[in-house]
């Protein structure tokens, strides 16, 4: 293992810091000033930095200077907002100008899709739009292409900000009326795309030296709410095909080091369509679930793969085989209260007694009103974790408890 150079963690993540602490190599955390005091008190190497400022007085050259006492050789983005900073630093560390361009690729959903299209991956119809009018036109063209007749339902359109994590700012528009109701000036410019039918899932690939060293498939039970790892047998049976498109993606995007987390759609006729891709720690507790299901620390794996100086042997020793079935499945369900007055937490007895129930982080609420205005999925109130041996049962539980009101009036 590279024990000479520090790894730079961009963003404050309690889990990532503790995982890094357990490795035999130096690291430094870069994040907002607010965390400085805590870092100092707890002996966490820290450089304070405002990721939102980018200019003469705040750029990658200055950040590199500030970090130089730590002798770093790689920067790892933990959050979406730090992806281009990591790209910029790694460009400098590796002396390769394309690294930053790749980072921008991850930060702009239109560029990303264009690149995927060029690489021969299947994507939906998409466009960059600057006004509501253009969204209407896009829907009209989709309707035409789908041969929608007057009076029939409009084709569904997804609107997404160019650069936001996961489902943040995502709006599903099912009709022209909804374009007028839901879309606001602030949304523009943005991406619109056709609705991709099929089963959505994600894939996490740990890449070193341009090769996928470990690949997990995550089964989404309900997008943004629940998923489990590894995916159940039906998705796993598509593993060779998924591996193929993943390799295509890695090659097309020129990714050499780190983790990518793309989302795919699998249609009934076995076609895989590309949704989007991120290169940071995925949401939905995916890293936690990977760690539980496979028995390795996913953050450490990310650090290892991100460092060009990591040896082949280190990589080999670190990962288990991703072809063999794991012992058990790890799942998580994020709990969002329904709109209305919320005053108490009610956890069904049978959940706590279920052999698959592992733990939860739900806390008693203060009485308050939950508004019906969240975009994307907003903030969840806590998570329930499951673990067990049967993927069917896992799916059943995640579906069932997603219907339960844990927060009641």
């Amino acid at each position: 293992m590279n024990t000479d150079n520090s790894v730079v963690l961009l963003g404050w993540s309690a889990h990532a810091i503790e995982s890094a602490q357990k490795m035999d190599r130096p690291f430094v955390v870069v994040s907002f000033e607010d965390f400085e005091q805590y870092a100092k008190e707890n002996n966490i190497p820290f450089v304070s930095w405002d990721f939102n400022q980018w200019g003469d007085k705040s750029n990658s050259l200055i950040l590199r200077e500030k970090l130089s006492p730590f002798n770093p050789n790689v920067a790892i983005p933990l959050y979406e907002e730090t992806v281009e900073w990591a790209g910029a630093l790694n460009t400098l560390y590796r002396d390769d100008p394309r690294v930053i361009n790749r980072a921008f690729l991850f930060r702009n959903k239109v560029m990303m899709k264009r690149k995927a299209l060029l690489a021969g991956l299947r994507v939906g119809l998409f466009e960059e739009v600057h006004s509501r009018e253009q969204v209407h036109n896009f829907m009209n063209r989709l309707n035409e292409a789908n041969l929608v007749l007057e009076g029939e339902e409009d084709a569904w359109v997804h609107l997404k900000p160019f650069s936001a994590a996961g489902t943040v700012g995502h709006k599903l528009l099912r009709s022209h009326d909804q374009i007028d109701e839901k879309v606001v000036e602030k949304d523009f410019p943005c991406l619109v795309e056709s609705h991709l039918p099929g089963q959505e899932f994600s894939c996490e690939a740990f890449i070193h030296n341009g090769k996928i060293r470990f690949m997990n498939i995550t089964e989404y039970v309900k997008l943004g709410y629940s998923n489990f790892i590894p995916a159940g047998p039906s998705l796993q049976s598509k593993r060779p095909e998924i591996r193929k498109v993943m390799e295509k993606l890695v090659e097309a995007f020129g990714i050499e080091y780190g983790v990518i987390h793309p989302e795919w759609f699998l249609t009934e006729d076995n076609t895989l369509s590309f949704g989007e891709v991120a290169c940071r720690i995925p949401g939905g507790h995916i890293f936690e679930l990977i760690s539980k299901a496979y028995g390795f620390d996913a953050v450490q794996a990310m650090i290892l793969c991100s460092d060009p100086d990591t040896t082949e042997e280190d990589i080999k020793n670190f990962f288990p085989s991703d072809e063999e079935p794991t012992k058990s499945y790890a799942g998580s369900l994020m709990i969002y209260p329904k709109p209305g007055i919320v005053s108490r937490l009610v956890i069904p007895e049978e959940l706590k007694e279920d052999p698959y129930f592992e733990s939860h982080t739900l806390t008693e609420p203060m009485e308050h009103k939950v508004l019906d205005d969240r975009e994307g999925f907003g903030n969840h109130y806590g998570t329930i974790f499951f673990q067990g041996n049967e993927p069917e049962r896992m799916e059943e539980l995640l579906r069932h408890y997603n219907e339960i009101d844990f927060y009641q009036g």
Partner: protein
Amino acid sequence: MSKEIAEHIRHNFIEQLRQLKEAGPLTRPEQSKKLASTADVMMTQHSGMALIYEYIDQIVDAGFFTDTHWEDPAILNSSLVGGTLKAGGMSTMFEVISELRVLAISEGRIKSDGMSEVSAREFLEELTVTNLDLLFPDASEELRNVDEQARKHIKALFDFLQQEFIRWDRFGKLLAGEIQMICNQRPIVTDRARSIIRIIRERMTPEEHGEHSSRIRFFIDALYAPSPKCSKLTVEEYETWLERPGIKKADLKAECEALSDPLRKSGLSSQYHALLVQRVRNDPELLGMALGLNTHGLAELETHHKKISEYISVACHPDTSRFVYGLAMMLERNLLSRQPVAVGLDQLLDIEIHPEVAGLIEKSHPESRCTAQQHVFADAICMLGQPLGVGQGWNPTCQSARGMSLWSRHAPGKLLSMIHTAAITNDLEMRFEGQLLKSSELPEGLMKEFDFNLDAVSIVLVPHLDRIYFEMMRRATGRGEDPHKWVNPAMYGQWIPTGFSTPYNYLTNAITNYEQFLRLFYVTHHPDYNGGHDLAYPNPVGIFLTAANGKLLGFHAVSILRVAWYKEVMRIYFLNPNNEGRQKWHSNIQPTVAGNGEVPGESSLPFHQFASRLYAFHYSPSETDGMDIVSDNEIGEVIDIAKSSWGTSYIWQDFQQPVFQNLL
């Protein structure tokens, strides 16, 4: 009793504990929560509590309490434990585990710089003493608001502490006092007193009773050995003995004399007593003796002996033993000469109870050998005999309990007729402003889950009364004034005076013209200002219910029964239907149930203290003269008390117009 913890739960708990040990300071709080979430289900039963206790040193060492309120045992405060336990959710779970840590410190298993073994023991003693309500859960207002899961945790914790720590000798005095106070109130449902007595009998040796041994002995005997004969025989053997042919009258007489004494002194009837009364029911002399009747009661017995004997033959059974005390009390009220009562009871003797109602009654008496009809009849007698012994159990139905108590005192015939209708039809009708309300056609009221810790009459009536009350409130809401103004007279009866005053403004959620309100209360209720009168009928009033720290808990319904001097203090005597008249309302506002001239079942407070909690009352509009002469000092004092307690939850406003609009 307590089943074993499932293997997967045990395994999961140990796994989460392992992860807590591995967690660093950043993720430790989250992992502590996860560990608590797995301990949750274990904490509801003894074996689970024991398992957590087995690992308590590891839990503490792993940093479970680090950076929490519980971190340093030195600053734990036993008087705060009860409140935190009742908070529910994670707070309850952390608190329970904190108690287990203190227990481990007291046993020397965990060494702590902040707490010695001795101080840990003292801590647990204080905590037990201040939380007898948790050790022996009753139905006080504060506990009823506690989440059910937290209640289970609390129960399991105290069961565990009882087994592991509580040395009963230290608690003899306290427990004797507790039983005494419950009995002083003469509740119809005496389960709580009975369970304390049973626990003492099972857990304590006579030497452990300490200096209060004779008082404790008295209560144990009242239930388990009310006579020398009973002390030698089981209930079954006693029954055989009583039925023996040729048993001497003198022997029966001796039993009657012996058993009536603890009955009258404690209000507790034993199973033996029910058998004895059944045996002597046809002999008025012995029966009068067995019930310990006064002259009123004896006269009633003489006049109505045949009827009474019939009541006994129907309803007196070891499983309805409270009937014995209720019967004695009813006879002394001389109700049987009233036509509506005599007819009402006759009708109840032979009814077919609606299957759903019968189901509820059976649920509340799961081990009873009696029929639902026997329970309803026996408890109807109790309710007539002990109008102030009605309680609401865990249900948020103070209005219904208050109503039954009022009817028992002032409209017993109406009460019996309601019981009759509801028991047969599982339905009840009342009129509100000329319209008929039928409970079966109304939506759910305040009560969501029925607590069955109630007498059978309440079980029959409360579900209906609750719906009707809720519907009346719904119809009277939105008139810009407190709906009770219209609902109380419609619900309880036309004797409720038509004047109604409250300082609480429904539209603005503010307290307005509070001083005026108080002066009106004084002038209509305080004998110094109203011409020296007591109340003719109970006044159903609303109070701001506050916790021991003075903080507002919510609105509560009580009845003012009378106002009288006692030892140079003007006191208000009232019925608190929550069956726990001693519940502390603030650090220095502590209603008493005995020792200040209270009749059993009454609570009392000095006039001004009660006034400081009042939020609504009825009055007669013709009796409002002299508001200005009420002592300014006294009014000022009441305002101060109010503002510093529940008053902090409201905005205070004063307008010039009078609040008692009925005067205009």
